[in-house]
């Protein structure tokens, strides 16, 4: 009897709390976005102007930095996939002893603050500049390392959903050569995982500030910070644009299927910086 009374009332209370929390969270996220839009389009006289937004493409510092960051993002994505995917396939098929060390190494950048990496990588970059010249694209190496945790998890989720050994043995016994096995058999089964990896790497590279700024390369976040000292409206416009771009990228990520048999890996698990296996793959207790 009493349960009949408390049931609906508690439900209504819970619903109120639920909507209050959601409302506050939405306001906390949306008010700054609207403020940025307002800030970047207002004029000193109280009117509206698209000046800051059109300067995104014309301001020499910013447009150069945007170009650098986009090139760097694509280059890093290619390097990460080209180095990590074959390595993970090799380990899965031939070198099972290397499985855990590989995972450990890939997750290590999560435990080392980027500002610490800079301190140690600065002397290495003196050599890189000596050998390759001082292009900002040199950052691809250290960015590939910083993106490893995300890339490894996305690719591992994809590989976990495949019966890799059967697939490869079938292809080999039908006479496929190794390059064909990788490019024509395995890769088409991993498109979702590879696309997730690319999205995550691009997000990491477009947002990275610490290493670029301390090594003295003008990428997009570095330029946003510098421009802010002379033209706050322009920096706010660029900031809003890059936040929206990152949001669109990650929203797209959550729609990508990863792995064929299992349900898509929850985006939260891929994004989480916890250096532990996502739920479902943990060791039995």
């Amino acid at each position, binding site marked *: 009897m009493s349960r009949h009374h*408390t049931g609906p009332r*508690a439900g209504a209370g*819970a619903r109120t*709390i*639920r909507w209050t*929390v959601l409302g506050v*969270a939405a306001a906390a*996220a949306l008010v*700054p976005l609207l*403020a*940025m839009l307002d*800030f970047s389009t207002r004029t000193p006289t109280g009117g509206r102007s698209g000046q800051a937004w059109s300067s995104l493409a014309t301001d020499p510092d910013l447009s150069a930095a945007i170009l650098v960051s986009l090139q760097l993002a694509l280059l890093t994505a290619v390097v990460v996939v080209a*180095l990590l995917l074959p*390595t993970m396939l*090799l380990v899965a098929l*031939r070198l099972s002893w*290397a499985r855990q060390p590989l995972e450990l190494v890939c997750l*290590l*950048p999560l435990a*080392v*603050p980027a*500002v*610490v990496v*800079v*301190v*140690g*990588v*600065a002397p290495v970059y003196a050599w890189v500049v000596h050998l390759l010249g001082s292009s900002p694209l040199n950052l691809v*190496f*250290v960015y*590939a*390392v910083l993106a490893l945790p995300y890339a490894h998890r996305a690719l591992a989720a994809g590989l976990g959903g495949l019966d890799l050994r059967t697939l490869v043995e079938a292809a080999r016994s039908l006479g496929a050569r190794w390059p064909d096995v990788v490019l024509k058999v395995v890769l088409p089964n991993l498109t979702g995982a590879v696309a997730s990896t690319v999205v995550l790497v691009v*997000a990491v590279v477009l*947002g990275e500030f*610490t290493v670029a*700024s301390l090594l003295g390369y003008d990428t997009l*976040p*570095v330029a*946003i*910070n510098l421009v*802010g000292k002379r033209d*706050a409206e322009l920096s706010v416009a660029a*900031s*809003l644009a*890059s*936040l929206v771009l*990152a*949001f669109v990228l*990650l*929203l797209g*990520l959550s*729609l990508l299927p990863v792995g064929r048999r299992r349900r898509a890996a*929850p985006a939260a*698990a891929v*994004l*989480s*910086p*916890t250096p532990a296996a996502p*739920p479902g793959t943990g*060791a039995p207790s």
Partner: protein
Amino acid sequence: MTALAAGRRTASRSSGRLASEVTAAAGLLPFGALVVLFLLIPLGVVFAGALLDESGRPTLGGLAALGDPVVRSAFARSFELSAITAAVGAVLGAAVATVVAGSSPTSALRRVVVAACGVLSQFAGVPLAFALVATIGLSGVVTQLLGGAGVDLYASGVWLFDTPGLVLAYTCFQVPLMVIVFLPALDGVRPAWREASLTLGGTRWQHFRLVSVPVLAPAFTGALLLLFANALSAYATAAALVSQGSSIVPLQIRRALSSDVLVGQQDLASTLAVGMVLVVAVVMGAQALVQRRTARWLR
């Protein structure tokens, strides 16, 4: 005779297998080179810079810098900032995660929240600082709206570009990080437990206090530690917000790196970096231990 031949055959087969194993392992070289050159050697450089003197002999002289009052107060302020924002972030983030966990993993609400939290917690950095400037900076939109209503945000001084500003900015990425870290734990809570406690006549409050809290406590503690380590390591937002001064450890590293004309400053950067690595390692180690407890119930 046949046994001998068979033995020889296995021997040659196993040496063939060894050879092919070595060839396979050689395939690890390109990736290994990247990791060694740009992760392991840099870490070695940091430790060498802090623990070796100019002639390459081990010394604890560098570590003496950790006892310097300026450095000590930077660590104290970093700890304080990390502890406050981890606690606030964990509580508020857990509340948001609990609300979102009620919806299915493929719902639009869940996708939008996770994407937004991913952006804010891990890829925002500098844009986050400018979001704060545009909202509650000196000429920010909300500052002006409140000013029109007679409320002066900066009546007691400009706090945004100092420690209170850092607390606010860090909270802006700690709450979303908590949502991302805590959601998988909440997903592990089975509806059957709730049904069981309600069937047995328990109230919602009893279910919360006697089932949810004990089951989720390790995950919550782990997330709290992770948030602490995250705040300690963060650099971009602080660097963009605080252009001068070096109140916290990452900003002290910036100063040590950018004034490397001074003899010994590079070593100061390494020493600070080692101090940071050690603290983060201890916190992450504790987090891993807690994580193991979490796995007992939430799989």
